[in-house]
Structure formats: structure tokens, C-alpha cells
């Protein structure tokens, strides 16, 4: 127990040296109360230091500062209490008692402040009153000798408690002490009220630890002190330990706060590092995806962005970005769009989705797609927008290129939605339909192409469009479009579906085929001319027959007429004979007329007809025409024809042309054949596939194998004076009748020409 020699001995008279000497002399009896009270003071001081240091570190935590004052005051109170408890003389006691009032005042003030700032409870007006009262009490205490509580102290009784002699004053109490009690009551009320408020607030623990405990302890300590005061109980007064208890309680609470704060700090740090980590990750992801992430804090007018985000807008890595700064990066022409986008997003509670140009500091431009979403606070007001931005320059360039291609196309290109209304059109379409594109957009396609209105299903526009385009391509009918002045022109269209970011559309390509149609007409006309020319040439070669066909009836008519003249010259004319003669004349004339009519038909260059013709009849007509030539060539004709009526659909003149050509060729082929063997065989039959097969077989010189195909080509001929067009023209005619013409050599001498024509269908 030698350590007690280390207890500090103040030079002032607070502690009496003699007591300690006695104490030592009394045989190692520990001054328990002194030790305890010293410990209390030390503890209190320690806590003060601790919390003071905390305050130094966290200047905003005033609770710690005010608590430090509380602890300090408690130290003071404890030391003073120790002083008077161990006083041996009234002067010592009185001194200590006098000094404690300072400490108690400090305690009162610091408790009021502490409760007010830390608990944010306790009516300020009451706190103020309490402080003022205690201040007054202190002021009144100043001039006293034995403190304001005592009018006088006569002597000090010594009571041994726990082996230590403690002082009990004997004297007269001052009535002014009631003033002090009043302030104590006030503080008590203050604390109680604070407790109630805090308790109601739900911070029950705080309420108990700080204000309730304080109040309760006050009550008890005061009560106990009073009893000791009046000698009913032995000293010491338990003020010090009890307020230490309060201080400890308060400290505990504060420490929890400190711990809590430390924990929070740790959590915050952890979160911050997590945040940095995720920011880094986002940065990387953003870099990889070329995405810039950003958060626009609207209330703070600050935009945070990843590195990628910043570089996307040409903003430096450490620059502070306000909304205005952000707008500056945007191309002036696009700023309106951005503002509108933001407004729309706010009004419709939609996502923000705008494409705009960003002007980079090195005066380059890039296209950016920005998408963002608003976050709202508890009041429903927009607080932040989070979003991403993407460099879409490449896409825009590709789009522009695609648009350029569409614009440059020589065909009219239109995008149509599935209801038939026109979306985008290119400039060729504008020129073709003679309307500016603004006028066309939104119109229904069938305004421009009325043929699309024909069709059963009015709702399935796409189906109708597709069907029409296919049927027009198959030449089943001609499709026409309308210009703005109502003028119609022929078109060809093709349709294909496309998927665009705005949805599915149909891409319709329109070609004005007016010129092509004219060219086709011209070509058909020229073919017709050629056929006519060939026909006329051929008929020219038939002049023998033609002359003969006409001369026969003419000869009859002349002879008949001259005979009639003779008869009538006689006195008795045989009128019956004359009548017969006249009838014959009429008949022969008609026959001649018929020949001429047929001839004219063959010679004319008329419209191509398509009518059902009996192939046998046509053949007979042709043979009649060339009868004389056949006779002249010494050719004998044999016919093997079907008995039934075989109809083909075609132009009678052109079909006769083919047959004529084949027969004349056969005659020519047999020019060198001995007279009795010039046999021409013509057969007709119906095939299985509803077609007519006609064969012209001669016994002539045949056709060299390697020329069986080439004879149908133009300018291929075996005749010295021939042009070689006859068979070529026949082939063209046959093709136009959807038929086939080919030649084969017979097993014996000669060749056979085959003509295959589709039978005329029953339905017109």
C-alpha cells in the first residue's frame, strides 16, 4: 500500500496533511473515501479528455465538447467534495463548500447545454432560467465565507467511515440555500421534460441514459445530501459518485455514438471503396462498349460521368460539369432537341432518348445517342437522371450512306407501313409522281396507284400489294400509276419487307416503264412489218399461182360474155342459154372476188388477231392458193387429216403464212426429184397434251444434219436468190402463238417439218 504515498498532495488547504499523517500512523488503514473520490475525479477527468480529443478530431460534434465540460465540472465537483469531506477545520470545510459552487454551476450550465445540443430536447426557456438562477446563486456565493449554504460553521465533527475520518459540519444553515434548491428543482424539471420529449421521440435509450438518469440521480443525491446535511446519515454525500454514474451513462451513450460513427465510417469507407470499384468496373465496361455512363444530380447541378463518358463529350477528366457545361458540348442545332427530349421525358414520365451531335474541342463532330431515366425524390420531384451515352457516328454515317444510296437510286423507292401509308420517299419518287415528298408522306399508296384499290380484302394492304406486284410481273395485267395531274403511266413494282429501328415496313421500288412499253410496242410493230414483208415476198414468188387463180375466172367470164353476145346477135336468141351464161358469169366473178379477198388478207399488214381457227380449213385454203404452182412443179399432194375439227387460237393470215412457206419449201426441195416421185404428204393430228401437230413431209433432198437448227435462223438459205428470212419469220410467228416449229429428216429421202400449236381453250 505504499502507493498511497503517491496520492498528490495539493498545497492548498483542501486536504489536510495531518489527516494523512494520522492515517499512516493509524497502521496502514486505507483512506477509502479519498481513494474512491480521487478515482472518481480521475475517471471523470479521463472521460473529459477522451471526449475533448474526440471533439478536436470532429469539430462538428459539439456534443462531445459539451460533454467534456460536463465531465470537467464533475471532476471539479468531485475534487471539491473530497475537499470538504476530508476537511478538518471549519475554514477548510467552508472553503471547499465555497469552491464547489463554481463546479456545480459549471455542471448545471454544461448539463443544460449538453442536453439541449445532444438530445435536442428540454425547453430552452427553462434551461435559461435554471442557468440564470444558478449564476445568481454563484454570485451570491462569492462574498460568503462558508459558502452560501452555511451561515456559519462552528466546528467539524469527525466520523470515521470505512477507516477514514470524514467531516461533518456543525453550524447554522443559511436560508439562501433554498435559492440553490430552487435552481436544482428547475434543473430537475428541465431534465424530466427533456426525458419526456426524447422518450416520446422514441429514443428511449438516450432518454434513460442521459436525462432520466441525471434527473433520478439528482433527486437521490440531493435527498441523500440533505439527510447527511441534517446529520441523519453519515457522510460522505454521494453527490460525486452519483454524478459520476450519470457521466458514465452519458459517456456510454456518447461512446456508442462514437462507435456507431466509427462503424458508419467503416461502412462508408467500405461502401466508398465498393463504389470506386464499381465505378472502375463501369468505366472499363463503358470503355469496352464505348458507353459513357453519367448521373445528373439536378439539385446540385452537377453531372458525374465515367472517363469514357467525359471523353465522349470532350470534357476533361477533372472538370466540374454543370448542366450548362453539358449543353455547351452539344451542337447548337441540336440543343433544342435535347431540351425538348428532357421536357417530354419529364411530362410523360418516359425514358429520355435523343440523338444529337457533340462538337468536340478540336472542332470535330460526333453523333451521340443518349438514354436516361429520371429518379424522383419522396416528394415526387425529379432529383436525378441516370443514363448512358453511345457514340453512334458510324451508325449515322452508315444511315446517311444508305439514305444517299436510296436518294441516288434511279428507281423510285418508298417505304410503306403495313396500312399502306407512305413514309419515306426518295427524290426519284418525287420526280416520278410529280409531288414534293412532304405531300406524299402520310398519303395512302393507292392514291398514287389506284389499281391497288381493287381487291377483296380491304384490311390486308400488304397482302394486296404483294399479290398485285406478282401478278403484274407475270404480265397478267398492266399496272398503272397516277401523277399529280391525273395522268396515268405504266409501272412495274417490286415489294420487299424491311426491318428498321422504327418498326417493320415494306420497301416498294417503282419503275416507270413507259419507255419500255413503247419499245415493246415498237418491237412488236417491227416484227409485224417483217412478217408482212416476208409474206409479201413469198406471195411474190407465188405469182404463177396467183395469176392463174385470177385468170381462170376471168377467162370464163370473157368467154361466156362473148358467147352471149354471139347468141344475142342471132335473130332467134336462145334466152335460156343466155340466162345460164349470165349465172355462170356471176359465179365466176364471185370466185375471182374471193381469190382477191384472200389475197388481200394475206398482203395486208394488219393487227394481229387471235381467233379460233380450224387447222384443216386453213390448210385447205393454203393449198387452194398454191394449187397451180404445185401443178407446175409437178408435185402431188397427199393429205392425212383428222376428221374432227382441230382448233388453234391465232392470226389466220400469219398461220397461212407459215403453211404457205412450208409447202413452197417442200416444192423447192423436190425440184430435182424425178417427176413421178414428187410426193408431198401433209398430216394433222391432236396430241395428248391438248395440242395440234401438223407435219409437212417431202421426198426431196433432205436437210444436212448439222443444219437442222440453223435453217430457222435469219439469212440462212440454200437458194441463190433467197434472203433466208422465211423460216426465221415463221419461227417468230410460231413463238408468238406459244407453239413449236422444228425439222427432221425422214428415214427415206426428204425431210419433215413439224408444227405444234396449243389447242384453243374452250373458255374465251
Amino acid at each position, binding site marked *: 500500500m505504499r502507493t498511497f504515498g503517491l496520492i498528490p498532495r495539493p498545497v492548498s488547504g483542501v486536504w489536510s496533511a495531518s489527516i494523512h499523517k494520522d492515517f499512516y500512523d493509524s497502521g496502514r488503514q486505507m483512506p477509502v473515501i479519498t481513494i474512491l473520490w480521487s478515482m472518481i475525479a480521475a475517471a471523470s477527468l479521463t472521460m473529459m479528455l477522451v471526449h475533448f480529443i474526440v471533439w478536436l478530431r470532429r469539430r462538428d460534434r459539439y456534443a462531445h465538447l459539451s460533454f467534456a465540460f460536463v465531465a470537467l465540472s464533475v471532476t471539479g465537483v468531485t475534487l471539491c467534495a473530497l475537499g470538504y469531506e476530508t476537511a478538518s477545520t471549519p475554514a477548510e470545510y467552508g472553503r471547499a463548500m465555497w469552491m464547489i459552487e463554481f463546479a456545480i454551476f459549471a455542471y448545471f450550465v454544461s448539463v443544460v447545454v449538453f442536453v439541449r445540443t445532444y438530445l435536442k430536447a428540454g425547453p430552452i426557456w427553462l434551461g435559461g432560467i435554471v442557468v440564470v438562477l444558478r449564476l445568481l446563486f454563484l454570485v451570491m456565493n462569492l462574498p460568503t465565507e462558508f459558502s452560501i449554504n452555511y451561515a456559519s460553521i462552528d466546528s467539524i465533527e469527525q466520523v470515521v467511515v470505512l477507516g477514514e475520518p470524514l467531516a461533518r459540519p456543525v453550524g447554522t444553515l443559511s436560508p439562501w440555500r433554498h435559492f440553490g434548491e430552487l435552481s436544482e428543482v428547475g434543473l430537475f424539471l428541465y431534465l424530466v421534460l427533456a426525458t419526456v420529449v426524447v422518450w416520446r421521440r422514441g429514443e428511449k435509450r438516450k432518454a434513460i441514459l442521459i436525462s432520466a438518469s441525471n434527473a433520478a440521480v439528482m433527486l437521490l443525491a440531493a435527498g441523500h445530501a440533505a439527510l447527511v446535511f441534517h446529520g441523519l446519515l453519515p457522510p460522505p454525500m454521494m453527490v460525486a459518485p452519483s454524478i459520476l454514474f450519470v457521466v458514465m451513462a452519458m459517456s456510454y451513450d456518447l461512446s456508442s455514438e462514437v462507435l456507431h460513427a466509427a462503424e458508419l465510417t467503416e461502412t462508408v469507407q467500405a461502401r466508398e471503396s465498393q463504389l470506386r470499384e464499381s465505378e472502375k468496373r463501369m468505366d472499363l465496361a463503358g470503355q469496352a462498349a464505348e458507353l459513357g455512363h453519367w448521373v445528373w444530380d439536378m439539385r446540385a447541378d452537377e453531372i458525374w460521368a465515367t472517363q469514357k463518358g467525359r471523353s465522349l463529350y470532350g470534357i476533361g477528366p477533372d472538370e466540374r460539369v454543370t448542366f450548362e457545361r453539358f449543353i455547351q458540348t452539344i451542337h447548337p442545332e441540336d440543343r433544342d432537341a435535347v431540351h425538348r427530349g428532357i421536357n417530354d421525358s419529364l411530362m410523360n414520365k418516359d425514358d429520355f432518348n435523343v440523338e444529337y451531335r457533340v462538337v468536340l474541342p478540336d472542332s470535330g463532330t460526333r453523333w451521340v445517342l443518349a438514354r436516361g431515366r429520371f429518379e424522383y425524390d419522396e416528394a415526387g420531384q425529379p432529383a436525378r437522371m441516370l443514363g448512358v451515352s453511345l457514340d453512334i457516328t458510324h451508325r449515322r454515317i452508315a444511315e446517311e450512306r444508305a439514305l444517299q444510296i436510296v436518294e441516288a437510286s434511279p428507281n423510285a423507292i418508298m417505304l410503306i407501313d403495313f396500312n399502306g401509308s407512305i413514309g419515306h420517299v426518295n427524290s426519284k419518287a418525287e420526280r416520278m409522281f410529280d409531288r414534293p415528298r412532304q405531300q406524299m408522306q402520310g398519303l395512302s399508296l393507292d392514291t398514287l396507284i389506284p389499281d391497288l384499290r381493287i381487291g377483296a380484302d380491304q384490311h390486308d394492304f400488304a397482302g394486296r400489294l404483294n399479290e398485285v406486284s406478282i401478278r403484274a410481273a407475270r404480265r397478267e395485267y398492266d399496272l398503272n400509276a397516277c401523277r399529280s395531274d391525273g395522268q396515268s403511266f405504266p409501272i412495274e413494282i417490286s415489294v420487299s419487307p424491311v426491318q428498321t429501328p422504327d418498326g417493320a415496313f415494306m420497301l416498294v421500288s417503282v419503275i416507270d416503264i413507259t419507255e419500255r412499253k413503247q419499245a415493246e410496242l415498237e418491237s412488236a410493230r417491227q416484227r409485224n412489218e417483217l412478217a408482212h414483208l416476208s409474206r409479201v415476198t413469198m406471195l411474190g414468188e407465188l405469182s404463177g399461182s396467183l395469176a392463174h387463180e385470177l385468170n381462170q375466172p376471168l377467162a*370464163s367470164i370473157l368467154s361466156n360474155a362473148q358467147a352471149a353476145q354471139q347468141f344475142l346477135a342471132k335473130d332467134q336468141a336462145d334466152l335460156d342459154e343466155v340466162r345460164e351464161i349470165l349465172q*355462170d358469169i356471176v359465179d365466176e366473178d364471185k370466185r375471182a372476188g374471193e381469190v382477191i379477198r384472200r389475197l388481200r388478207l394475206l398482203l395486208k399488214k394488219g393487227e394481229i388477231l387471235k381467233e379460233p381457227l380450224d387447222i384443216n380449213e386453213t390448210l385447205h385454203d393454203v393449198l387452194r392458193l398454191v394449187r397451180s404452182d404445185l401443178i407446175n412443179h409437178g408435185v402431188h399432194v397427199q393429205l392425212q387429216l383428222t376428221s374432227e375439227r382441230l382448233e388453234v387460237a391465232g392470226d389466220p393470215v400469219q398461220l397461212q403464212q407459215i403453211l404457205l412457206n412450208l409447202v413452197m419449201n417442200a416444192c423447192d426441195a423436190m425440184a430435182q426429184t424425178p417427176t413421178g416421185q414428187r410426193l408431198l404428204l401433209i398430216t394433222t393430228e391432236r396430241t395428248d397434251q391438248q395440242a395440234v401437230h401438223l407435219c409437212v413431209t417431202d421426198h426431196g433432198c433432205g436437210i444436212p444434219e448439222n443444219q437442222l437448227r440453223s435453217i430457222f435462223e435469219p439469212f440462212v438459205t440454200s437458194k441463190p436468190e433467197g434472203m433466208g428470212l422465211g423460216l426465221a419469220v415463221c419461227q417468230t410467228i410460231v413463238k408468238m402463238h406459244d407453239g413449236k416449229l422444228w425439222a427432221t429428216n425422214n428415214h427415206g429421202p426428204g425431210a419433215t417439218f413439224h408444227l405444234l400449236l396449243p389447242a384453243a381453250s374452250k373458255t374465251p
Partner: protein
Amino acid sequence: MKNPTPMVYLVDDEQPVLRALSRLLRSKGREVMAFESAAEFIQTHRDDKPGCAVIDLAMPELTGLQLQERLSDLGSSLPVIFLTGNGDIPSSVKAMKGGAIDFLTKPVDGDLLIQAIDRAIEAHTLMLISVAETAALERCLSTLTPREREVLEHVVAGKMNKQIAADLGIVEKTIKVHRSRIMEKMQADSLAELVRMTQKIGIEPARP
């Protein structure tokens, strides 16, 4: 000889033409026989009476030209006139070379045709007469004895009786007798006529 009515033979494969031509010729008082087929005509026609054939060139089976050949093969004397609907030069040349009297194109004027027919018939008639004459002379000639025959040759050579007697070794008187008998049998009136007759039947005068 009697004068039989000349016959005109019409050959054409077309009925209306045949009818018309027949009418025309009949109206001009000619006798007509019409044939549609060449074969039938060959069978039926007679060339010993005056007549002519009017043949259409372009006929099936046997063309006009072929018919002409046939007639010639048969030795027919009937003159041929060709009628044709188409008059091409090669055909007409061939026809004329083959001995046709004429080559006419349809429609033929009635008068032209009649003229041609008359010419043909006249020629035929003359030919027939000539043929008849020659036949008669041949008959007369056959009545001569061989000696008379021999004398005849010398007589038509213009020799004197004396000479003939000397050439043949016969007495002059006998020559005179032969001479008068020849004149009688041959029914010649003068020496000139006799010479003409022998020329006609192709007897060569003797060499001097």
C-alpha cells in the same frame, strides 16, 4: 373427099372454163368436144379428120406439155393450141418447140381464139389433103411395072426418048409406049406434073 365439119377438142381441168369456152365456140358455129381429163381426150380424139386441140397448160396428172409429148409420141397430127392462166416464157418456148400452133393466155379474147383455131384447122386440113394426095399417088405408083418404074425415073430426069432407049438398051418405040402408059397410070397431064408427082412421093430422078 367430103368436107367433114372440123372438130375442136377442148381440154381443161376446170369445168367452168370448159363450159364457157364450149359456149363461145358453139356460138361461133364450131363443133366442140370438151374433156376434163387428158387421158380421156387421148382415148377419144381422131386426128384423121380436120380439127385441133385447145389444151390448158396447167393440169394435174398430165400437164399440157406432157400431153403434147404424148401426142407426138403417138404420132398424132392434131395441131395443138395452148391456153394458160400464167404465161411464163420458158413454158411458152417449150410449147412452141414441141410443135404447138399457138400459145394463148387466159382470159382469151373469143376472136383471137377463133382465129387461132381456124388457122390450126386450115393447116390440119391442108395437111390432111396433102396426106391424102400422097396416098393416092402411092397407090398409082404401085400399079407401075418395074420397067415402067425404071423408065419413069429417067423420064422425070428430063431425058429424050432416044437417050432413055440408049441408057436402058430398049428400043425407042418401046420407050414411047411405056411413057404413055406411065402418064395414063399416074394420071398426069404433062411432064411437069409428072415431075411434081415424083417429087411429092419422093422418087429420085435418074442420073444423066
